[in-house]
């Protein structure tokens, strides 16, 4: 008795005597032409589909960033670091709460400020500010930063991300609009200087 399993493994292609080329060369050619046509239609359709999927990537060439207010200057007393928040410039109604983002505002001397992203430079978790020890601590993997954003301990590969800022009248504005990561950095890429403690 023939074993179908063995036969299939040995000879998986099913032969059909009707499929001899002499029998149908014109129809075979037309079939291949039709396949080619479908391939071409598919390729043409793929352009808008890919464009749609990759939309967020192409958008990046135009900037996502705008000047947005984080609050009045009175909210950020000199010598202190306070939590500020801003509405992301590029939002839809469906974003809800997720488009209101926090940041840490350090008023150094009423003239110069530092505005840090809330996100730890290691894995984006929200860093907490401890005014007593003047440290930012991250709850995820133990990243710690000094008050100027420099790495104090733990795994962060760089200082806290900083936003560019300007003061307009009584308002503090920052240049913000996208989640800062190692490749989509907040507006100031230059790391803050570390305090000289030696």
């Amino acid at each position: 008795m023939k074993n179908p399993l063995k036969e299939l493994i040995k000879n998986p292609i099913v032969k059909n005597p009707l499929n001899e080329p002499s029998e149908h060369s014109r129809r075979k050619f037309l079939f291949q032409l039709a396949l080619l046509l479908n391939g071409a239609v598919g390729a043409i359709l793929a352009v808008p589909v890919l464009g749609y999927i990759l939309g967020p990537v192409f958008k990046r060439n135009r900037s996502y960033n705008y000047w947005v207010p984080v609050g009045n200057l009175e909210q950020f007393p000199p010598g202190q670091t306070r939590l500020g928040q801003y509405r992301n410039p590029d939002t839809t109604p469906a974003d809800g709460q997720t488009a209101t983002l926090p940041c840490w505002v350090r008023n150094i001397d009423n003239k110069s400020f530092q505005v840090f992203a809330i996100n730890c430079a290691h894995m984006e978790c929200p860093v907490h500010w401890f005014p007593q020890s003047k440290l930012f601590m991250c709850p995820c993997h133990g990243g710690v930063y000094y008050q100027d954003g420099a790495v104090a301990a733990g795994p962060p590969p760089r200082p806290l991300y900083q936003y560019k800022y300007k003061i307009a009248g009584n308002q503090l504005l920052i240049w913000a609009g996208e989640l800062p990561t190692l490749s989509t950095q907040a507006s100031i890429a230059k790391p803050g200087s570390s305090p000289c403690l030696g």
Partner: protein
Amino acid sequence: MSGIKQKSLALYHWFDRRLGFAKPITEAAEHPIPRSSASWWYVFGSAAAVILALQVVTGILLALVYTPTARDAWNSLNFMNHGLTLGWFLRALHGWGSDFMIAIVLIHMAQVFTFGAYKFPRELTWIVGVFLLLLTLGMAFTGQVLRFDQDAYWGLGIGASILGRVPWIGGDLVHLMLGGPIIGATTVSRFFALHVFVIPGILVALVGVHVWMVLRLGINEWPMPGRLVRKATYVQEYEAEIHKDGIPFVPDAAWKDAMFAAAIILAIAACALFFGPIGPGGPPDPTIIQTVPKPDVPFLWIFAMFALLPPKLETPILLTAPVVAILAMLGLPLYAGEGEKHWSRRPVAVLMLTVIAVSIAIFTRLGQTEPWSPKMNAWSGDAIPTRFLKGRTPLEQEGVVVFQQMQCRNCHSLNGIGGERGPDLSRVATRLTESQLIRQVLQGGGNMPAYGDSLSPQETTALVRFLETLNGNERPAQNDVLRLTQGESAPPSAPSPVPPNRSQ
């Protein structure tokens, strides 16, 4: 009665005349399998398929109510939990089903690996299985995102951070994953599309291919030591075995599969009933930063590795290790497609499986306890044990206040209470001298921040005085240094009940 029977038989024949399902289904169900394979060890694959069916059904039921937007997702989950009849139970079934599915898939994989079932001619069955594992984990991750709470929100940040480390195209990948510049509505809707359409579609198709190959190539026979797999002879040997001593899959082996599947579904239902739905946790409001984000259990071991990898090697390892691990799993049957199947003759395989399983278990446990993370409220919440306060001078007591105020406790525990990031300081004075303590506090080092900027000289003095009392009634480090510098011989260990620096 017989009239009804005849009529239904006629109906059956009417359909089968047109569908023609009866013959192939009967043949597939009754296909012969080796008698040894009708084992309780061979039930995990079918159990995984049954859980998949449960997930599909419960998933569709959840989709009736779930709102896939950043604004409303969390509210719709709470509505399901509290405002909808038995909504909590359906959510619980889906959530616990997910955990059980991953566990069963992993057990199935470990069993197939241990029994050498990936060898010829079942290499491709294993390779498709590896993709099924990845898709299952993909379902778990995207599902965790759809439970759009604080953990999901910050978990997306972790995902973005990993993609952001890819050279050159990292930024593009981040935007592609988030669907925009920030975690928001477009992020949730694309994870919804992945979780509900894309991944399940591929998953169900590949399960079909996987099962087709199991039917086509036959169920793996029970491995015997010394019975080697050879490409030239294996198929003939297998055929001979199932012809000589084969049994039909249904019902001789399938009853175990069916029993086990029922037990597993019952276990999922019991977990759902007793432990309830998983989350949602806090609202996905990024301005609420008082949170300790954590991924779901299947990803805790990876979360733990992020804290424990050397920081300099982190990015290279993050980007290469998954690729290497997946390639190794895919390449396994091509590399070891012949030879021994029995575990007793494959010590390296058994050792590998054990090491991987134990490592993942340890890292998962570490991910639960997070010893590397500062304990954010230890400085304000954890009491100083009274034995560290008794008999202390006012200056030392001031040091206690500095110790708590400056959040030292977030990383250092006293008597085992407090953070675990740094060493327990209950006996620090036996390890460090006064000058070493001052240097460590002011300059930091060894993964400790420098406090020179935030401590006044008065506070530093008080803090170090307090730390010097923490000697566990043993000889302080200072004495050893003095003894060595003065060239005295070591006295027999005689802990002085009162530390010398306190009697000064």
